[in-house]
């Protein structure tokens, strides 16, 4: 163990970290949802203009779900980071579990967006081209990979123990 890792390890209060295990996961999940929503808005809506602000075929229930997740994404990003700050001040931040949460939140939200929003509720498509299949497959397979990685990290960190020296 090199000097830096030792210093960081000593800054962790393992009892607090075990107490705050769920808060670590939730902080990550919220931040993950926020990051995906942010990428969706900046890259796909604003820069590429692939997504449309409002697809004229959107049914009302689609508008409700879209509105809710749009509001939630702001909340999730900001709230997730404040939770992270709280964990750090308690010396209870658990990096691996937090990242597990980020992957889980990001993957789940992307999967929801790619299946329920785009396909079931028909809010808008990924891109307005004749052959959508490659886009849909890339989108949703990437989402599944993120979810899988998130589940793996969450299982790996399900118990908090003081690392053996």
């Amino acid at each position, binding site marked *: 163990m090199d000097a830096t890792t030792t210093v960081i390890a000593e800054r962790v209060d393992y009892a607090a970290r075990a107490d705050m295990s769920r808060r670590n996961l939730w902080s990550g999940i919220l931040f993950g949802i926020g990051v995906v929503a942010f990428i969706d808005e900046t890259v796909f809506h604003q820069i590429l203009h692939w997504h449309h*602000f*409002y697809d*004229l075929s*959107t049914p009302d229930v689609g*508008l*409700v779900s*879209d*509105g*809710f997740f*749009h*509001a*939630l994404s*702001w*909340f999730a990003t*900001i*709230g997730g980071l*404040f939770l992270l*700050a*709280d964990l750090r*001040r*308690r010396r209870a931040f658990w990096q691996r579990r937090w990242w597990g949460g980020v992957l889980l939140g990001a993957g789940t939200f992307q999967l929801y967006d790619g299946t329920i929003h785009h396909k079931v509720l028909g809010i808008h498509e990924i891109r307005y081209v004749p052959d959508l299949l490659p886009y849909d497959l890339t989108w949703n397979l990437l989402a599944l990979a993120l979810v899988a990685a998130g589940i793996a990290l969450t299982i790996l960190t399900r118990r908090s123990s003081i690392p053996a020296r």
Partner: protein
Amino acid sequence: MHDHAPAAGLDLVLALPFALALVAYAVGVMLQRQRGRRWPWFRSAAWTAGVVVAAAGFVGPLGTDAHAGFVLHMWAHLMVGMVAPLLLLAGAPVTLALRSLHVDTARRLSRMLSSWPARVLTAPVPAAVLNVGGLWVLYSTPLFEAMQQNMLLHLVVMSHFLIAGYLFTAAIIPVDPAPHRAGYLTRAVVLLLALTAHGILAKSIYARAPLGVDVIEARSGAMLMFYAGDIVDAIIIVTLCAQWYRHGGRMLRRASATKPVADAA
């Protein structure tokens, strides 16, 4: 259409309450200074800016032209209903009033603030319904078309924007003493739902223009409502989270301050 000729005289009358708000606040701040109590400069700055922003929706070019187009009307809504309340709240007017007024008057004010009507109006759910519900009624009924043609109705709607906006902001992120403030989770959930309703309303205006509004203009106004609303919402969310974070910090310090005593006993 109403005619714009007597605008100068009317502007003067409309500006009066805003001028009074500035003067009353300034008197309060001067009283504090006289008594040797500090009053943070940023509170005075926020109040002044808030009054100016609110007044801009009633008096002058924006106030008059907001009749003319939907996009300008949306600017007026954002300024009067969202930005001004946030700034006015940051001015902590109730705190200043309680400190500056004569003891008996201050007691009466504080009793009034804890009376049941005041408690209902400043609770998150009723304040959110008044605020966002009012917008839904305005844009999905003929009310919007009517307010664009009737000066008095226009003023009533603008006043509603300001008052309901202030009550909502104060219910979610209280700055002044609020004896019955709701818990953080309630406030967060109500804010989340209110933001959802605001976003849905913006998109439904995009889809179906309000009566008397041209489609292209309705779409520009809807997108302005959606994205500019987002910026104000982000400020409210950050403030709510910061209040939670500071509250948690106080709890932690209190816990660590009492711990050694408990251990010794």
